[in-house]
């Protein structure tokens, strides 16, 4: 795209250099700027004109800032839901990317979209804020022994997730250990055990929904 015309206009370039070299150096410098994530405008403009690779790079470039915003706001939610919210924001950026006006700065647009989706995501999860079951173990009465059929279902479901998660779920849900204690046996820190348990539960509930059909 950068042509010999702009090369000849550039007065501070060395006098005796093969033009191609300069153009290539220039292109590399521009790549560096883009890789830095400082020129989001150009990436999104190219993306909106149909350049899928540019859109991929744009999303990759903005993801760290979005993740930071979500983490800062979402202390009340477990970290694995942060990634779900991030994905919702990325999806919205795709669906609404044509509402950004080429030639205007991307950041105000991007943060307005992200803000809207993040607020929306937290509000929707607000009615069902996740709390680890361990917080309630002193309050909740012991559950009655499960019906034989239900336990067979559980075993079938546990066979469909990975062994470590299954062991964790067995320890917590069936043998009644706390997530922390169960995680310790499996070499997980307390936080990691809670996250792993939550994820396993989510996968199990998806499997259960599938079995119920």
């Amino acid at each position, binding site marked *: 795209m950068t042509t010999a015309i702009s090369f000849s206009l550039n007065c501070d370039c060395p006098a005796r250099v093969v033009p191609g070299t300069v153009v290539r150096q220039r292109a590399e410098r521009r790549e560096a700027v883009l890789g830095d994530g400082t020129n989001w405008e150009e990436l999104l403009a190219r*993306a*909106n*004109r*149909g350049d*899928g*690779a540019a*859109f*991929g790079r744009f*999303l*990759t470039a903005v*993801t760290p800032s979005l993740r930071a915003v979500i983490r800062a706001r979402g202390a009340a939610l477990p970290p694995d839901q942060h*990634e*779900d919210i*991030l*994905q*919702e924001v*990325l*999806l*919205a950026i*795709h*669906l*609404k*990317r*044509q*509402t950004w*006006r080429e030639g*205007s700065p991307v950041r*105000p*647009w991007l*943060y*307005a*979209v992200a*803000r*809207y989706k993040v607020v*929306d995501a937290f509000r929707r999860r607000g009615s069902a804020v996740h709390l680890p079951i361990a917080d309630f173990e002193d309050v909740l009465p012991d559950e009655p022994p499960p019906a034989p059929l239900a336990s067979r279902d559980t075993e079938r479901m546990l066979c469909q997730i990975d062994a470590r998660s299954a062991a964790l779920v067995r320890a917590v849900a069936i043998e009644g250990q706390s997530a922390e204690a169960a995680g310790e046996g499996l070499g997980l820190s307390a936080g990691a055990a809670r996250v792993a348990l939550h994820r396993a539960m989510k*996968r199990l509930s*998806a499997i259960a929904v599938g079995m119920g059909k």
Partner: protein
Amino acid sequence: MTGSLTTDELISALSKSPPPPRFRADVAALAIAMAVLACVGMFWLVFGMRADLAGQLAVPMTVLKSLLPLSIGAMALWLAMSSARPEGRVLLWVLALPAGLALLLFGMRALSVPEGQLVRELVGQAAVPCLVSIPMLSVVPLAVGLWLLRRGAPTRPVVSGALVGLAVSAGSAAGYALHCSEDSPLFFVVWYGLAIAISTTAGALAGHRLLRW
């Protein structure tokens, strides 16, 4: 929501998706204005304009009866379009100018009206047709406007919906005014205002349901 997709997988999938249709605020505004004109035009065809229209166009108050709602409609349309972009500024206060002028006309007439005339001018002859016609004329343009705005990204769906409702009903009122032979501001500020408020509320309610994304 997005299942077990990792964020990198999502980005790669999104970068392979074609860009969504562009949001063109100017095209949308024109389409909404055309929809209002079409509905008002049909109303004129069926119910006719007032018989003394040619002579009345020299009377400032009669002209203001159309011009005031027309200016409110144009402002609201512009505001609705800027509210369709996430980073857009919505300068709602500009609406205070025509609204203030309407109240001023109302107040001045209320102070100058002859004894015993006030209630008669306030109630008028055609309050019910006015209250029915303006909201009815607004239904189709409101639907068109909300449908077009769904392509935008309004971060305040209720405000955006209300602005579309205000734009189309004020436009309809400006057209209806050429049919209506009540020229006292005591009449038209109250009844046109009420009719416009009905459609604006409908727009806000519809926006709450239809403009979220």
